[in-house]
């Protein structure tokens, strides 16, 4: 046991060191692309941290989003940035030159940084070593929650109202992106058979994994957010491999899928409110399938939203012409 603890301790320390180093490099490296790659690596390691902190649900989400989608988003953005600016290298250089501040303006933030770390660190260290948080409450009510995974119980039942609002946040991000009008279209790049066949394999697997995560979320780590992220990744992959977004798909059905998550949530909330007398108060017997219903809708919406966010602009539709 002793040796294991030492190994684990070393593992943790190395992880912490790597994360810190990465974060610092992300902030300090001059080359934007380098920063993005480092950030992707940062996301990967964060997933390991979640594993170490016994938070497999978050590890799943981080694996899908932090290590995957965010990287894809950032790279697509960098590409578009370079497409907008004819001289990307020059622009990077000028911005690098601009980012040469004078000595005090370099040192002062650093001092502030150290002070903040020290202050907050002191605050953290003076917290008691043992605290149960809401563990007893969760344990006590798990039987009434309709699911066996405590995180899902919290997300969809105990604090389901938060999740409802989070779905709205997600939708809002997309609405805002659409409101900005299309960003520059991804320049068409000829597809090649290798990529196409990779997608043909990966996309169905991603969909299966997404459904699996949705299903398993009731009992074990997983759930709508993870499933939705994986679904979103499938969408991103399709978009990357030059999937032709057909007009008729994007008119009504896309909008419908996008609002499905929050819409179903709101409708169920309202129905429960008028029948049960409480906002999102599930009858214990029905809690299980209601949660699954909500999660399914949410998964579809999250997936569609993330893919649409990656796509950037508003898909052309007759309504908006």
């Amino acid at each position, binding site marked *: 046991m002793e040796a294991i603890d030492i190994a684990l301790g070393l593992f943790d320390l190395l992880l912490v060191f790597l994360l810190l180093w990465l974060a610092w490099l992300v902030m300090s490296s001059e080359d934007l692309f380098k920063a993005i790659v480092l950030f992707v690596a940062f996301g990967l390691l964060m997933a390991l941290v979640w594993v170490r902190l016994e938070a497999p649900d978050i590890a799943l989400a981080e694996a899908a989003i932090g290590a995957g989608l965010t990287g894809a988003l950032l790279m697509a953005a960098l590409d578009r940035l370079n497409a907008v600016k004819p001289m990307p290298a020059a622009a990077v250089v000028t911005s690098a030159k601009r980012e040469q501040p004078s000595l005090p303006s370099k040192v002062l933030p650093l001092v502030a940084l150290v002070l903040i770390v020290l202050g907050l660190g002191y605050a953290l260290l003076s917290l008691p070593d043992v605290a149960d948080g809401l563990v007893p409450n969760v344990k006590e009510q798990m039987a009434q929650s309709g699911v066996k995974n405590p995180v899902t119980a919290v997300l969809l039942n105990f604090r389901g*109202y938060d999740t409802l609002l989070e779905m*709205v946040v997600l939708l809002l991000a997309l609405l805002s992106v659409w409101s900005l009008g299309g960003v520059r279209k991804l320049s068409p790049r000829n597809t090649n058979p290798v990529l196409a066949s990779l997608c043909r394999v990966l996309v169905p697997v991603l969909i299966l994994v997404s459904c699996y995560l949705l299903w398993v979320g009731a009992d074990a780590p997983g759930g709508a957010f993870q499933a939705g992220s994986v679904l979103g990744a499938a969408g991103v992959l399709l978009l990357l491999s030059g999937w032709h977004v057909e007009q008729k798909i994007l008119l009504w059905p896309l909008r419908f899928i996008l609002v499905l998550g929050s819409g179903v949530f709101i409708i169920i909330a*309202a129905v429960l409110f008028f029948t049960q007398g*409480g906002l999102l108060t599930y009858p214990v017997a029905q809690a299980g399938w209601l949660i699954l219903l909500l999660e399914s809708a949410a998964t579809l919406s999250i997936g569609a939203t993330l893919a649409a966010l990656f796509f950037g602009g508003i898909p052309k539709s007759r*309504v*908006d012409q």
Partner: protein
Amino acid sequence: MGGLLSDAHWGVLLILLPLFGGLCSFLWPGAVKFIGLATVSAVALSVVGLGDQLLTTGVYHHAVGGWGAPLGIDLYADGLSLFMLMVNALVGLGVSIYALDYFDQGEARRFWPLWLLLLGGLNALFLSADIFNLYVTLEIVGLAGVGLASLSRSGAALDGAMRYLMATLLGSLCYLLGVALLYHSAGTVDIPLLAERLESTPPVWAALGLICAGLALKTALFPLHFWLPKAHASASAPVSALLSALVVKASFYILLRLWLEIFSVRTEGVDDLLGALGMAAIIWGSLQALQQTRLKLMIAYSTVSQMGYLFLVFPLAAAGAFSAWSAVAYLILSHALAKSSMFLVAGNLMHFGGHDRIADLDRAVQRLPITVGAFALAGVSIMGLPPSGGFIGKWLLLNEALNQGRWDLVIVMMIGGVLAAAYIFKVLGFAFTQAPVTHEPKGVPAIMEWSALLLAVAAIVLGFLASPLMLILGIGETVQLMGAGQ
């Protein structure tokens, strides 16, 4: 329906209605105006319903999901919440009516879903008794705000929206870290329970600092106001109105709420710091407003200065005085009405003349008397002249400051009033000039003129409604805000 709504359902409707309306308006772009106006009207009615309910039965509690704090989330409404909801409803109605004619078809389709969701987020914010839930609502408000701020897609609007996005995200993150510390200090995110459990420990202090900093950034407290003028001045007129009147108030409300409920007894020094920054904001914002040559920037800097008044509550409320925070609530309401009216006026003037350079307002006063009248009336409230809501708020605040012997606050408030008069009359003075009309002015739709005027008139009428409004504010006050409901 009547039966269903008979007991205490208005609060929930206030949240679900606008969210649902927002989704519907996104799904049916052809009917956005109808859906939008219907939703906003229904929200206004629900506020009335909630008010009636609160007046008869006292504070409102609803345990979402039936779990109750600390495991679940509680909805809560007292006089202060109701007051903020009223601000939403009033300004929301005015701006919505204005927006009917302001936006062309394409912009309207983008505006309404964002605005309705923003309204839902704001309502949810004012009804929440849970600091993490408040974070989520803050995110709704922030992202919707960014979407709205960039609605016109002009370079300036995008620049402003970007600044706003950075500020609001940073503010949210600071707030969230504060929430994390509070949760791990007390094992709950429910405000009344936090009030019971928190002690004066380093993590609580750190949380206080983070939350204050984050919310002050979102509220654009000097010197964290740097993002506001550009963001608010470069957005479309109805959006500027919403941002200045409602969005910045939301974060301030949270700060005030947390202060009154959680932090008040543990905060020597911090209150004075906030007060000092508020004073600086009043002076700095007014001086900046005075120097602006563009109307919307001037109005935006005026917001910076007016937000300063709100922060004067912190040194004064340390004594736990109802009169201090009720004064600020009154200021919030009257500023919201007056400022939204001003931005709508600016929208009319830009529509009319195609620019908002103060010196070239031509003879707008002759051509748009209603609009200029609205500006003047709104100005009266901003200056704090009687009879207006602004005057009542300022009177109450002055009274409290004198009561506590805070001459510094008194003097700054007086100076702020005089400076406000200076920048407002600068505009009005130019409006009377005889310069020849140098461009072909466009007619302004009557709805746009009248909705601006109505908001301004409402700000004035507030000056005569203090007694009933104080009654509303007092709901739950006698039982010491949230805590006793448990």
